[in-house]
């Protein structure tokens, strides 16, 4: 299982490095969304709002949806699906591998967006650094959930539009827990509750993915 996971993760990351879809399409989209969030706040609040963490996560969430689509699109050209199916890969390993690759990509994009939030929304640098562990775990949970929901919608009619409908409700607690722990890192406040939510979500998605990913694959 772990061997398959590493093989699949390395393959996904290599494809990403070569195609640069992340760099040339996803990251610019995220940066633009961040700028638009600032504009939406209005000139009085754009640089001094406490909404920084919330906007950071909202943008990350939409960026994550694009990346989940991309992660499934790699597999879903008809020929690739057939050839890879005849390799008989362990589905639990494929799930873990794709989640791992997505997680690394989300971390990379998250760092860029975090830098953007510090720069344009004037989020405090020190608080952002303190929030890094919680951001890391939130994005990891998003990656596991996203891989699962991506497989749920893969190949169906209108997969690209169905994915957000199914995924966003599941992202709601992650958004809340991530935003609250980020705000706590900036302004102080309760923390352990958010770690509970994040840990439970991460464990649940990993467990369900390992157990049921094979069930979701076509045929």
């Amino acid at each position, binding site marked *: 299982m772990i061997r398959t996971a590493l093989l699949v993760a390395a393959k996904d990351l290599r494809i990403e490095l070569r195609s640069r879809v992340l760099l040339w399409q996803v990251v610019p989209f995220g940066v633009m969304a961040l700028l638009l969030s600032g504009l939406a706040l209005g000139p009085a609040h754009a640089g001094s709002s406490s909404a920084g963490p919330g906007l950071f996560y909202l943008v990350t969430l939409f960026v994550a949806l694009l990346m989940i689509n991309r992660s499934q699109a790699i597999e879903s050209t008809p020929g690739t699906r057939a050839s890879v199916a005849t390799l008989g890969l362990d589905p639990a390993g494929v799930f873990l591998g794709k989640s791992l690759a997505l997680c690394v990509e989300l971390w990379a994009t998250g760092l860029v967006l975090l830098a953007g939030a510090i720069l344009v929304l004037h989020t405090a640098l020190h608080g952002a650094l303190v929030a890094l562990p919680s951001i890391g775990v939130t994005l990891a949970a998003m990656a596991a959930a996203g891989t*699962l929901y991506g497989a*749920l*919608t893969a190949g*169906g*009619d*209108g*997969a690209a539009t*169905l994915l957000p*409908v*199914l995924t*966003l*409700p*599941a992202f*709601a*607690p992650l958004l*809340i*827990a991530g935003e*609250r722990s980020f705000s706590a890192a900036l302004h102080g*406040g*309760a923390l352990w*509750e*958010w770690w509970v*939510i994040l840990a*439970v*979500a991460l464990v*649940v998605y990993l467990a*369900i993915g390992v157990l*049921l990913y094979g*069930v*979701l694959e*076509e*045929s």
Partner: protein
Amino acid sequence: MMKQLSQRLLGPATLVLLGLTFWLGLWVTPPDRVQGDLVRLLYVHPAIAWVALYVSFGTATIASALYLWRRTRSYVMDRIAYCAMEVSVVFIVLTLITGSIWGRPTWGVWWAWDARLTSTAILGVLALGYLALRRANEDPALRARRSAVFAILSAINVPIIHFSVQWWKTLHQGATVFTSSRTVLVHGSMAWTLLFSFVGFTLLFFWLLRARYRLEVKREASSSAQLDEALASRRSEGTF
């Protein structure tokens, strides 16, 4: 024999209990000292919410789990899950509407960032997502597997969503409006009415589920008749 009798009595029993609930709720029970006539929503809203959140979503989840388990895997379970989820959408919408009607005079707004309200709304999106997912997959086996996994994921998500919204709210503001103004002391005729409403709406759910299930079986039968036709016409392509 017993099964047939109970199935035949399901409809009338539902009507009688709901009729009793409305009569007791609207005319017999007294208005509340604080909430006045608004308290009568007590005989509708909690029972509908109970059916929406626990009975119907629970039925869909259990049927989904039974479908995924190899030993109990059958399209009966898949159909029950699908039909229960469809009925649950109706009850979730009713829960939100009755909750809003109650909330407007109590809180002064149609929508409040309350944990129960928010998680019910998200649950509604999940239930609609389930129906959308079913429409997106044509192959019956794949559709059944994927929707079963989604139903189970959703059921696990609901408590996570609920707690996160509750903590999000309470850690920020202290006590919610719910605990103070909505508490009603229940006694006498009110308790009976409440009991009738819970049993009545639960029976209504099973009645609707049964009707929807029968409809689904008929729909499948008609599409399998179409299938025989399609097979015959496909085979005739081969004769020159």
